[in-house]
C-alpha cells in the first residue's frame, strides 16, 4: 500500500473513544484484567478512576462483574486480549451475559496473527467462531480507527451484549473521521462483476489491494467490508453474490467458524455460489513479525487474488 497511508491501531481508537463517551455518559464503566496499558482502557482509567475496575488477572470475574454492573443499569466495557475473552470466559459470557442479554460490551484487543512475537498463546484465531455461536451477542470487527470509534458508539446505543474485535498493530485508515456505522450494514467499498471479496478487519485493506491486482488481470472484484459478523447483512451479501456469482471471504482468523463460516452457511442455504475462504488454515499461530506471519499463513493480497481466481473457476465448473 502507499507509503503515505495513515495508520492507527483499532485499540488506540477504542481507548480514545471510550474517554469521549465516558464524558458524555456517566453510566459508562470500564473493566480490565491487568492489561489496561495494552487494551488502552488506561486512558479511561486515568480520567475516570472511580468508573474503572481492574480485576487483576481474573477474566472470568471481570465478565461476571460486568454483568452485574449491567444488570444495575451501567454500560460496562470489559477489555482484555481476544485470546482470553471469549476463550477464557466463554461460559461466563454465555450464562451471565448472553443468556440474560445484558448490555455488556466486550472489547477484545490483540486479535489475530498481527499480535506477532508473543506467539500462539496470544494469537486469537478462533474468537469469532466462539462469539458468533452465542445467541443474543452482536459481533463487530471494525476495519480501521474511524470505524472503531463509530462502532463503540453503536455498541453503547445497542441495548444488548456486543463483542468488539480489535487489533494490536496499526492498520491503514480507510474511512474518514466521523464515519457513521450501523450494526449489520455492510459497506461495498468497490463494485465488481466477477467476484466479491468479503472481508473483515485488517483484511479489508488487503482485499482492496488484491482487487487492484486482479483488475490488472481483467478480473473485476467487488470489495465488501463485512464489519458486523453477527447479524450478517444478508441483503448486501445476497446482492453481491447474485451480481458476481462467486465469493471470497477474508479474515484474520481460522477459516473455520468465522466470517467464512457465516457467509458459507448463509449463501449455501439461499444462493449456492462458490465461497472460497481466506484465513488461517486450522493451525495455531507462532512467533514472528506480523508481516512475516501474514505472509507465512497466507493472509496476503496474493493469497486473496488466488482465492478469487479459484472462486471464479468454481462458478464455471
Amino acid at each position, binding site marked *: 500500500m502507499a507509503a503515505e497511508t495513515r495508520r492507527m491501531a483499532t485499540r488506540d481508537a477504542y481507548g480514545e473513544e471510550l474517554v469521549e463517551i465516558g464524558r458524555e455518559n456517566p453510566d459508562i464503566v470500564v473493566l480490565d484484567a491487568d492489561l489496561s496499558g495494552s487494551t488502552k482502557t488506561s486512558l479511561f482509567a486515568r480520567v475516570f478512576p472511580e468508573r474503572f*475496575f481492574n480485576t487483576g488477572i481474573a477474566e472470568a470475574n471481570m465478565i461476571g462483574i460486568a454483568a452485574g454492573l449491567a444488570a444495575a443499569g451501567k454500560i460496562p466495557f470489559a477489555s482484555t486480549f481476544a485470546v482470553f475473552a471469549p476463550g477464557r470466559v466463554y461460559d*461466563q459470557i454465555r450464562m451471565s451475559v448472553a443468556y440474560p442479554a445484558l448490555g455488556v460490551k466486550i472489547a477484545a484487543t490483540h486479535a489475530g496473527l498481527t499480535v506477532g512475537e508473543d506467539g500462539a498463546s496470544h494469537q486469537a484465531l478462533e474468537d469469532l467462531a466462539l462469539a458468533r455461536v452465542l445467541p443474543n451477542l452482536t459481533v463487530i470487527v471494525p476495519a480501521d480507527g474511524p470505524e472503531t470509534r463509530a462502532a463503540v458508539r453503536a455498541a453503547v446505543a445497542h441495548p444488548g451484549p456486543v463483542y468488539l474485535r480489535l487489533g494490536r498493530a496499526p492498520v491503514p485508515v480507510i474511512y474518514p473521521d466521523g464515519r457513521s456505522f450501523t450494526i449489520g450494514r455492510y459497506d461495498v467499498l468497490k463494485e465488481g462483476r466477477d467476484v466479491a471479496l468479503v472481508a473483515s478487519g485488517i483484511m479489508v485493506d488487503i482485499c482492496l489491494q488484491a482487487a487492484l491486482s486482479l483488475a490488472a488481470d481483467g478480473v473485476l472484484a467487488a470489495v465488501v467490508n463485512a464489519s458486523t459478523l453477527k447479524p450478517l447483512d444478508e441483503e448486501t451479501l445476497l446482492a453481491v453474490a447474485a451480481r458476481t456469482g462467486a465469493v471470497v471471504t477474508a479474515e484474520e482468523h481460522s477459516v473455520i467458524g468465522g466470517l467464512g463460516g457465516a457467509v458459507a452457511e448463509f449463501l449455501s442455504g439461499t444462493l449456492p455460489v462458490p465461497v472460497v475462504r481466506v484465513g488461517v488454515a486450522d493451525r495455531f499461530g507462532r512467533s514472528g513479525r506480523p508481516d512475516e506471519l501474514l505472509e507465512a499463513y497466507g493472509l496476503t493480497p496474493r493469497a486473496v487474488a488466488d482465492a478469487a481466481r479459484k472462486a471464479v473457476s468454481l462458478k464455471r465448473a
Partner: protein
Amino acid sequence: MSGTTSLTGPRAGPEELRQVAARVRRHIIGMIGLAGSGHPGGSLSAADLLTALYFRVLRLNPADPAWPERDRFVLSKGHAAPALYAVLAERGFFPVEELRGLRRLGSILQGHPDMKSTPGVEASTGSLGQGLSFGVGLAAAAKLDRAAWRVYVMLGDGELQEGQVWEAAMSAVHFKLDNLTAIVDCNGLQIDGPVEEVMSISPLVDKWRAFGWNVLSIDGHDMVQILDALETADRQPGRPTVILARTVKGRGVGFMENRAEWHGKAPSGEQLEEALRALGASGGPESPGTAGAAPGGPGPGRDGRSGTRKGKGGGRG
C-alpha cells in the same frame, strides 16, 4: 396457607418465619414432585435462609420487581431454584399457582433461574461459580450510585471449589464492598458425595479470612441465628461479610436428609406423599386451591435501615 401481610413486613418474628419456611418446604417438594425432576436436597437446606432473607431482610416491592432501590439477591447455586421460586411466590412476586409449571415448556419457572423469565429473579444462574462475581458487579454499581441497597449472594459449599468464586472473593475485598453479603449453604454434600471426600474445602473459615472477609458461622436452620448474622453483616464497615451457614441437605424430609442421592432427584408416588407428610400437611403447589400469596408491597426489610446506610455509599478503594 395463611399468607398475612405481617409476614411480608419488617417485623416478622422467628416463629412466623418458621411457618413461612415450612410452607416453602412444602412448595419445594410439591413442585419438584409435580415436575418429576429438580433438586430437592439443596433447596431444602436453603429454605430457612431464603425465608429469612425474603420475609425479613430484603427490601423489595413485589408489585414493582424492578424498583431501583430494592435489595438484590443472587442465587449462585442456581439448582436450588425451587426454593427461590417458593419464596418469591409466597412473597407475592407471582401467583403460587405458577409453581405448578416448574420446568415445563412455556412456564415462567425454568429449571434454573432466568432473570428474563421470572419476576423477582435477579440473575440467571445454573452454571456454578458465577454468582458472586455478578454480586460484586451489583454491589459496585450501588457504590457508584451511592445507593443504599445491598446485595446478597447464596453459594453452595461444593460450589466453592470453582476458582471463580475466589476471584470474586478477592475482588470484593479489594473493592471494599461492605454492601455485599455472601451466604454459603454448608450442607456438606455435593453431587458425588460429601464435600470433604470429593474435594475438601476445609478449613473454610480460614480460607474466607485469608481472602479478607468478615466471617460469621451459624446454624443455618436457626432463625434467630440467621437473622442475627444477616443483621450483623449489614453493619460491618469496609469489607464484605460471609455467613457460613451449617445446614442439612434435604432438611425437613427425613429420608432425604444428609443423603447425596437426593441432590437432584424428584420424589414420586409414595415418597412424595411421605415427604409432604413429614413437612406437615398440604399447601404445596400440588393443591393450589389452598395456597395464597402474601400480598406484595414495598417495605424496608428491617429497622433503621436507611439510617445506618446513608453514610455508606460511594468510596471504593
